[in-house]
């Protein structure tokens, strides 16, 4: 039996499949749709990542950092009281227990190592909820790199704790006022910065979005979540879980989780933000309601109007407030290998409280959407009673506590 206790060495699984051609996943999703200025840097990054990912030395360094710095492996926790309440056996993959409090650190440590390999001295990042910004600022401090984080002005407001954390870690946080002033616009401004600074700067993208090689590279840095969870589930359950669930904004925790189970019989479910309800038009459900398009360097599914203008997303959770989804999710959806459900703001708030009260674990609002779907699906019988359900708890809820408190005391419910 492989030991996956905390503090034990992190065992990286084998590298996953590369997309074909110029970063294409099934259905032609992916690609490299960027201004010419960025193309050579993306080619360099692709080559560096491929070489690093097949280098024992790089993998050892990455695994060591995940263990000694990020606190991996993270446990899988069985939720006895919640399971009893729902009639299905719920297990949580505890990314909330990593250093900085979310799965974002996995990817960032990988990209920081690559940045050093490419002899670049400056990191830029976009952030929605602030978790990726905090993780990037953390890695920048650890590696002695300059760090600039672009964050929508709306998100700066609703995630002020994370803004303070980033500044404390020595990063500069630049509020972005253009467009919807959320994650999409933060990515736009990060790309604009990068067009000017690409020769000395690495853009540390926080999700499985963006031009090739990002969707592939970020999935590979996040697959440790799924690889660990599969081993842990086999030890706990004697087999794979029946259902594997994760929330999807851009989709990095979900793709990392799915990577460990895509070749098993497990039902894979990504949960998108239904915001105020799919019919309201105010949501972030890009797989459910988006159409094929090209944004931020990749062909995928996006919320857009009839003229191809990108629409603003809405979610109570800043991390899911994005009008698109990573291209590999679009491919998994098209192939029918994963299904994409959604949960509303309201349902997520309920799940946020329910997990806190029944298990003593305060989840972030993002994975609260995954928990909300499990709750509904168990009640409605779309998960059979007694099934085993693995949910990736992608982050902890400290960052959301103030915002939830305001919602619960206000008239918004």
């Amino acid at each position, binding site marked *: 039996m492989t030991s996956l206790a905390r503090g034990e060495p992190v065992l990286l699984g084998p590298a996953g499949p590369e997309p074909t051609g*110029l970063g294409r996943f099934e259905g032609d999703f992916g*690609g*490299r*749709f*960027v*201004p*010419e*200025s*960025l*193309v*050579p*840097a993306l080619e360099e990054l692709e080559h560096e990542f491929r070489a690093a990912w097949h280098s024992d030395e790089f993998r050892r360094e990455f695994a060591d950092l995940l263990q000694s710095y990020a606190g991996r492996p993270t446990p899988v926790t069985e939720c006895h009281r919640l399971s009893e309440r729902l009639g299905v056996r719920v297990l949580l993959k505890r990314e909330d227990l990593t250093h900085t409090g979310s799965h974002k650190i996995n990817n960032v440590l990988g990209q920081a190592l690559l940045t050093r390999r490419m002899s670049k001295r400056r990191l830029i990042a976009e952030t929605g909820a602030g978790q990726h910004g905090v993780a990037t600022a953390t890695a920048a401090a650890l590696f002695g790199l300059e760090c600039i984080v672009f964050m929508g002005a709306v998100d700066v407001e609703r995630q002020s704790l994370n803004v303070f954390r980033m500044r404390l870690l020595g990063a500069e946080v630049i509020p972005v006022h*253009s*467009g919807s002033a959320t994650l*999409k*616009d933060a990515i*736009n401004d990060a*790309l*604009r910065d990068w*067009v*000017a*600074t*690409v*020769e000395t700067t690495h853009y540390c993208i926080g999700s499985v979005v963006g031009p090739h090689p990002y969707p592939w590279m970020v999935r590979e840095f996040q697959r440790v979540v799924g690889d660990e969870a599969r081993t842990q589930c086999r030890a706990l359950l004697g087999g794979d879980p029946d259902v594997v669930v994760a929330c999807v904004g851009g989709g990095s925790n979900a793709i990392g989780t799915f990577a460990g189970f895509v070749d098993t019989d497990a039902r894979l479910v990504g949960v998108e933000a239904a915001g105020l309800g799919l019919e309201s038009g105010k949501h972030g459900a890009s797989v459910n309601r988006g*159409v*094929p*398009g*090209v*944004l*931020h*360097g990749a*062909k995928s599914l*996006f919320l*857009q109007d009839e*003229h*191809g*203008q*990108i629409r603003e997303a809405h979610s109570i959770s800043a991390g899911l407030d994005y009008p698109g989804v990573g291209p590999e999710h679009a491919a998994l959806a098209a192939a029918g290998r994963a299904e994409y459900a959604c949960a509303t703001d309201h349902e997520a708030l309920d799940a946020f409280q329910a997990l806190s009260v029944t298990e003593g674990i305060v989840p972030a609002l993002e994975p609260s959407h995954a928990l909300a779907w499990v709750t509904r699906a168990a009640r409605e019988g779309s998960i059979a009673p007694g099934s085993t359900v693995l949910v990736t708890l992608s982050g902890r809820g400290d960052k959301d506590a103030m915002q939830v408190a305001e919602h619960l005391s206000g008239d918004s419910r």
Partner: protein
Amino acid sequence: MKLESHLRERREAGHKLLVPYVTGGLGAGWRDVLRAVAAAGADAIEVGIPFSDPVMDGKTIQEASQRALEIGATPDAIIADLRGIDIDIPIAVMTYYNPVFHAGHERFASALADAGVDAAIIPDLPFDELDGWGDAADRARVETVLLAAPTTPEERLRLICERSRGFVYAVALMGVTGERANLPEQALTMGRRCSKVTDRPVLLGVGISTPEQAVQAAGAADGVVVGSALVRRLLQGGGPDEAGAFVAGLRAALDAAT
């Protein structure tokens, strides 16, 4: 090949080429701006079809795009407005790939051709991703102008210059569109690098905002694209007269220098 042949003709007649950029749909009278700019001595006009997420554009063109979208600009409406416009110089549209992809390559290309638009510039559709659109545009006889950047390596630069139609858009600096105080040395290097590998017209664009900078840049290339400096004047309330005067100033400076 109306854009390219026109620019070649003008170049062979000894002129430096001047291509101003105007955001389409920016106010009800935006076509009067095109007319004024053409009358002031532009050799072709670049018309922006605004997109919600213009990642190659700086603040000025972002603001213009947003303003145009807010007052109802759509790709279809802008293309319809260009149909049969009484301007005797070529028109190229500049937009991002998503509106093109969303409309469909064939449909977008034939809509441009039907409206008499000669060329298209799509800055987030690099050489390697050109296939679908490039073929559709070729079939519709719409010239696709490709961008070359300071970071583009030599062999790739050659391929880009070869595949580009109309002219080669040589990006003058590392960064997004917008006015700059000075023209970097990089711009001149870029103009010379492109001119060395192609006999297609080479126009420097991005960060060229004054007559002095235009003259300087045109010293190393066949001409210039000027966008933000003109659009800023429109955003500040300037109309066709001011736009025309600004372009006339650029024209006079370029002519005086040749």
